[in-house]
């Protein structure tokens, strides 16, 4: 094949590749069969009224294409991701839809993703200029970051014969945290371990009872100042409290394990970390692959550990 013919062929293929996806519904398939039947009948008999009916059927297909295009063309989409979705647990995926002008009907929204794409949200009517929320219940089978790049918006309007879809580029990442499982006291698998680094803090800056007040030295944290007493005495006084013995635990993770085993380990460690944190321990995380979360407490810290466990074994996002 000559280069020119090849170029022409490529140009034709490009022309034929539509920017929209079109799926025929069962009623649409029957309709197409009927249209072909009427067309054959018209050709066979030369009956002009059959040609008229055929023209109506074909123009209905054309009108369907134009009206459905008007529904999906200008829709703007914003993705609303859940804060902490857990693997194997249902969570809500949301989208905010807006149409600058015109109106759209019978919309369905889904992610262009092999797993999350099965969650479909529906909207009967999107009026002009208003932002409408659509939600769908999704379930992710595994932990880890899910790269989302597009949202597919579809409509069966106006005749239900075809479903026209348009993929809207909306890049984003959904971080699925390890699934929930009952926590165990001991280290359950060889790829995880619990560091036994435990120590009581002897300093007088802990979270215990008030021990004494003394003058603030230079370079000390101003947040420790007891402002009321300082105002009474006219000098800056610092609070010193008895330190509580906080267990500090660093969880060890071998993130070079095979994916399935690693997933299991991460879920076990996540459960363990949540248990320990709930009991007041400072929990950290370290792994051979470079994951490191310093020991700490609190809800944000829990999230940090769970996120680190969710990303374990996955390549870091570029940039």
């Amino acid at each position, binding site marked *: 094949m000559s280069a020119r013919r090849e170029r022409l062929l490529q140009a034709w293929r*490009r022309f034929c590749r*539509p*920017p*929209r996806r079109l799926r025929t519904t*069962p*009623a649409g398939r*029957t*309709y197409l069969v*009927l249209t072909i*039947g009427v067309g054959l*009948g*018209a*050709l*066979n*008999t*030369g*009956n*002009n*009224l*059959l*040609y*008229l*009916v*055929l*023209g*109506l*059927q*074909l*123009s*209905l297909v*054309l*009108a*369907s*294409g*134009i*009206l459905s*295009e*008007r529904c999906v*063309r200008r829709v703007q989409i914003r993705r609303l991701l859940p804060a902490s979705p857990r693997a194997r647990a249902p969570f809500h995926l949301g989208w905010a839809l807006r149409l600058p002008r015109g*109106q759209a*009907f*019978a*919309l*369905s929204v889904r992610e262009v993703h092999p797993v999350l794409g099965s969650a479909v949200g*529906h*909207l*009967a*009517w999107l*009026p002009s200029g208003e932002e409408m929320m659509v939600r769908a219940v999704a379930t992710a089978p595994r932990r880890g970051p899910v*790269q989302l*790049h*597009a949202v597919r918006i579809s409509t*069966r*309007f*106006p*005749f*239900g014969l075809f479903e026209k879809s*348009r993929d809207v*580029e909306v*890049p984003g990442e959904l971080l699925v945290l390890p699934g929930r499982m009952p926590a165990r006291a001991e280290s359950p698998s060889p790829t995880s371990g619990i560091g036994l680094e435990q120590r009581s803090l002897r300093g007088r800056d802990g979270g215990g009872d008030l021990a004494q007040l003394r003058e603030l030295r230079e370079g000390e944290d101003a947040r420790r100042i007891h402002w009321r007493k300082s105002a009474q005495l006219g000098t800056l006084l610092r609070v010193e409290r008895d330190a509580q013995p906080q267990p500090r635990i660093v969880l060890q993770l071998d993130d070079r394990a095979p994916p399935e085993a690693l997933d299991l380990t991460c879920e076990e460690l996540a459960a363990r970390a949540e248990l320990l944190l709930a009991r007041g321990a400072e929990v950290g995380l370290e792994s051979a692959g470079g994951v490191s979360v310093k020991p700490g407490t609190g809800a944000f810290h829990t999230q940090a550990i769970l996120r680190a466990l969710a990303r374990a074994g996955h390549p870091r996002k570029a940039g």
Partner: protein
Amino acid sequence: MRSERLRLLLRDLTAGAAFAAMAISGQVPLWTMAVFVVALVLALAGRRPLSDGRLSAVLLLLAVVAVYAAVLLDELDLVVAACITASLLTAQRLLSRPTGRTTDQLQLVSLLMIAGGAVLSADLLFALCLVVYAVLAVLTQGLWVVAEVPGGALPPTGRVLRPLGVGVMLSLGGALALFLLFPRLSWNVGARRAGASLGGATTGFADGLRLGGTGLLKSNPRVVFRARIDPDPGTDQLDAYWVGRRFDAFDGVQWSTAGTRGGPSRQVVLGPIDANLVRQEIDLLPAYGSRTLVALDAPIRFGDAESHQTTFSIRTEIYSSGDREVRLVGPSEHVTYRAFSAMERGRVLSESPAERARRLQLPKALDPRIPALAEALAEGAVGDRAIARQIERALQSRYSYTLELPGRVKDPLADFLFDRRAGHCEDFATALVVLLRTRQIPARVVVGFHGGERAAGEYLVRAGDAHAWVEAEVDGYVLRLDATPPQHRSAAGIGLAGWLLARWEALQIRWLDRVVEYSLSDQSRLVQRVRWSLRETPESAPPTARRPDEGVAVALAVLSAAFLVAVLIGRRAATNDPAELGRRLFRLLRRRGRLGPKGWLDGARVGEAELGPVREGIARYREARFGRQPLLPGEGRRLLRQARRALQGPDAPSARGPRRPTSRA
């Protein structure tokens, strides 16, 4: 709830319109019509007793089996059987629980009925039903699709109807454009003639004319033939007689005719042809229903008869029969022919004693009061012509016209003349002929039509224009006499109804000409007209006259523009596709001769400092396509624009280098 009721109403009416498109053909059996109408009425009243569809499905299956058994036994046409099946299926679906699925099925079966109607009927009413069906089907489907969306608040119905209105316009306009442009290439292996529509053929020239009928034909408004007359009389209402058959033998109840049958021929000449003839192009429509040809009184020549089938026309032969009657050799539902008639009445052609005796023959059991009545009516008149005119005037003035007759009586003529003193045109014509014959004036009854309404440059003649009058031989000439009161000679349609009927008939003619008989040659003429109109300068075109093909040109232009816009929108939407970005970069680089050694983006020669945007474009293409870092909205277009701008500067180093040898030494 209101919107649901509206949806159901629209859905049921859609099915009704589709059924009507089929039923107007008059070929759907009455029992099918009854079943469907009952189902439709029940559905419209909200009664749907077939929520459990098993029993009804079994009954439906049995009915369908019976219908197709009738087809196998040659009792029923296959197309009609298919239409019956579709009707029964629709009736069953109408009475089932309404869901999205049943609505889809109903719509599809309705479409089948519309197709069935197209095969069975060629009437203008079909177009009306088709338009109503299209409008209702679009609205129904649109509302159902929106209502079927799970778990959402439904929009106000008015909001949905607005885009659906656009859909209706697009569908109807598109149907018209596609109808005009779809090539009429037919295999012609299953052509089927359109029937005479609801009511069947109506004219029905019988072999004999029997008195005592009810005369219902007079109020039938269906057009049975149309004629173009040259020279054009120019009047809206034609006062003319269209001759069909003549009868000269009367037995007291029934008229009959005798005569020799001529051989089949392309033309039949009945009298001397001179230059002063009225030319008529006559189109006998399917409702005509007779093989007798008609022409303006007095017909001289018939010829050029063509029988029109759905896809082709063939010449057909004619022959003379009986007393100057001209008939088609074979039956045909749609025939055109030419006829020429003399403007002045000529001499009597047949002077044989036998013919003259037949025209003087009286019934054997003639009521003795009739000759006495003739003598009384002719009293004082001198000469045959004066006697004939005096009796004609006496009948017109002393007897009244009525279509309400008692039916069969023993002596209908005596009943008309002496008892009821009222009758219709056949009674008047019979009485006049018998009264003339008692006075030894040869006469005969002529049946045909009287009148004609102008529409679209032609004259339409209805079944109700059927008429009977008299031809008498007076002083060697044929004298036309009509004893029927003048106001009762043509069809009864007057006033607003008559005006509406005339407009309807004009539409019907256009429908037949421009739709039902639209052909490949019409298509080529249309294309040529459009080409010529495009070549014409605006100054040469009349400013107000808007030809019909201009509408077609506008429709074509709108369709082309819509297609172009759709393509452009599609291409624009495609630029954020990474693959499309790669293709466009590839094209840009190929044009500038900067592609890599393997002919793709790898190794593209874009090392110069000023080609940074091109490198960025290629890098982003790779990231987006293979690195799961999709393009941001509008990023593809921006990258392409920058790359194009950067490449406007330098040419490729090798693009203008030494050319490779094209042949080997």
